[in-house]
């Protein structure tokens, strides 16, 4: 017979109260685990999306005269005067230390062409790379492959009343419209999109590109470092990180995380109050018992030890069950968020922290009642006998 034996017997005897306490703390732990798991899953999803989102680094030629632009590429009025990037230099990107973080390199050439006497911007692309960068593109028909093929931006298609299969004269050369780009709401709607090599010939920019978009894997990738590294290998260019989207998304996620922590802290405080009030009630109810323990020679420490041990057992159980319930709730909630694309990941830190936090909260909330119990004078307690 040890003190643990008495504690377990007492918990078994007062099952209702023990279950109430476990449920109270369990709800708190489960809520915290659910919110943090959701935040974690959504964060991972956001990062994953960012990796697939498109370019987050743009390389443009250095230029002084700026009148027209597309995505940071400056075109000089009617006549393009900007210096272009040598396509051959792009292999230097392979030399940067963070090469493994480079997911996609999308070179493009840009220039003005003439259709039916009107000026339109043509963009030459590497179709495979571009479609990886612009996952939001929706093309009716098919993408360009090689030869004089065009995908036409929505505004251009409407302006020239173009349909798939139409033959379009560009600078006097025939091109076949193989795809219509659905409206994007961006400058892409204004483009004639052709294979890179075809556009280079059409624009008389063989071996040159007007800009390069790079998608860097963003999970822990040092974008700023990569910008510096790219700048070093391509000194005649401007290398810029496109971080607005990343930051906006991360800001939204931070807001959600902040909200989650706010709710979590509130729930934990409520849980702690619940434990405190219940334990206080239990101590009042057990004054007689405590009097007996003290009268037969239990030290204050023994009484404190018993009350805290009871709280530790209840809290540990709440922590473990709360974590499991929280994970269950997360698994149920995730399919309803982000179109079911966010997935739950085992997070040992969260699991251990949830149980530890439950125990710490349970013990802290039980400490005042435990101290009160231990400080009961035997004579005072025995008056209740």
């Amino acid at each position, binding site marked *: 017979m040890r003190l643990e034996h008495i504690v377990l017997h007492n918990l078994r005897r007062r099952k209702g109260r023990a279950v109430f306490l476990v449920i109270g703390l369990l709800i708190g732990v489960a809520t915290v685990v659910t919110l943090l798991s959701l935040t974690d899953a959504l964060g991972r999803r956001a990062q994953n999306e960012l990796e697939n989102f498109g370019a987050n680094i743009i390389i443009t030629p250095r230029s002084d005269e700026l009148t027209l632009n597309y995505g940071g590429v400056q075109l000089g009025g009617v006549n393009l005067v900007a210096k272009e990037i040598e396509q051959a230099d792009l292999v230097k990107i392979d030399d940067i230390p963070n090469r493994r973080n480079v997911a996609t390199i999308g070179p493009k050439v840009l220039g003005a062409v003439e259709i039916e006497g009107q000026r339109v911007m043509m963009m030459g692309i590497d179709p495979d790379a571009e479609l990886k960068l612009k996952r939001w593109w929706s093309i009716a028909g098919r993408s360009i492959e090689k030869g004089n093929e065009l995908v036409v931006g929505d505004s251009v298609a409407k302006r020239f009343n173009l349909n798939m299969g139409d033959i379009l004269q560009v600078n006097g050369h025939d091109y076949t419209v193989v795809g219509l780009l659905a409206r994007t709401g961006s400058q892409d709607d204004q483009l004639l999109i052709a294979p890179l090599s075809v556009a280079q010939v059409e624009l008389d920019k063989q071996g040159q590109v007007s800009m390069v978009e790079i998608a860097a894997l963003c999970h822990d990738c040092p974008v700023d470092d990569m910008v510096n590294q790219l700048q070093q290998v391509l000194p005649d260019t401007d290398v810029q990180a496109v971080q607005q989207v990343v930051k906006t998304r991360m800001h939204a996620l931070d807001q959600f995380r902040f909200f989650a922590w706010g709710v979590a802290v509130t729930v934990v405080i409520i849980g702690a109050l619940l434990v405190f009030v219940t334990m206080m009630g239990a101590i009042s109810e057990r004054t007689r018992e405590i009097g007996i323990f*003290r*009268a*037969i*020679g239990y030290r204050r420490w023994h009484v404190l030890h018993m009350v805290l041990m009871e709280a530790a057992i209840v809290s540990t159980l709440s922590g473990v069950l709360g974590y499991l319930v929280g994970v269950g709730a997360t698994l149920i909630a995730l399919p309803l968020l982000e179109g079911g694309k966010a997935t739950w990941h085992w997070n040992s830190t969260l699991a251990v922290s949830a149980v530890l936090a439950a125990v710490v909260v349970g013990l802290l909330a039980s400490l005042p009642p435990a101290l009160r119990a231990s400080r009961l004078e035997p004579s005072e307690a025995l008056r209740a006998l």
Partner: protein
Amino acid sequence: MSLITLDKVHKNYINGADCVIALNKLCLTVEEGTFLGVMGPSGSGKSTLLSVLGALASPSSGSVIVDGIDVYGLSAEKQADFRREYLGFIFQSHNLIPYLNALENVMLPLAVTRFSADEKRRRANDMLKRVGLPDRMLHLPQQLSGGEQERVAIARALVNSPPLLLADEPTGSLDTTNSHQVMSLLKELHEDGQTIIMVTHNRENLEWFDRTVYLRDGKVEKDVQSCLDQLPQAI
């Protein structure tokens, strides 16, 4: 040899604006091996005397020496150790822990000692056999009769082999038969050398004591070898 010496023990209780004197400079010595009865009307200070002897209520003044130990010179934690090692309490209403069986209730004082689990069990077993409850060990208090509960309480009080047993009206809630059984048991213990101080209202118990003190207004009014004729009739 005196096991207990109370020297001018005074105990006041403050009750609102009133000051109630429970023990009034009481002096008392008790020899080892005595079976002492404490009698007196309600409010005479019997229970307070037991509390003061049991290191449960410190006196307002005076000293309490038990087995050479100045009880109220000890720290609160040492007083707890003193209660565990020197005293056995038998309460008026048994005061068993309702969710522990008889054996576990008897083992209760041993739970905070360094004895092995087997030794604790053996001692509690022996004590329950001694009080005549070898077949009730695994019964919960509510499954025992009043007399049986009282015997479990006696076994619990004795399991630590304390030099002094303090009993507060142990037969107060028992019928005549159970009362007799409990008193016989206490007498047996006394005959084995146990020092017992028992508070009682029941004059029929006087025959079991070898010394009786009669309290009135917190003082010893009479202190006699048990002889009914020498005690006040008003008890």
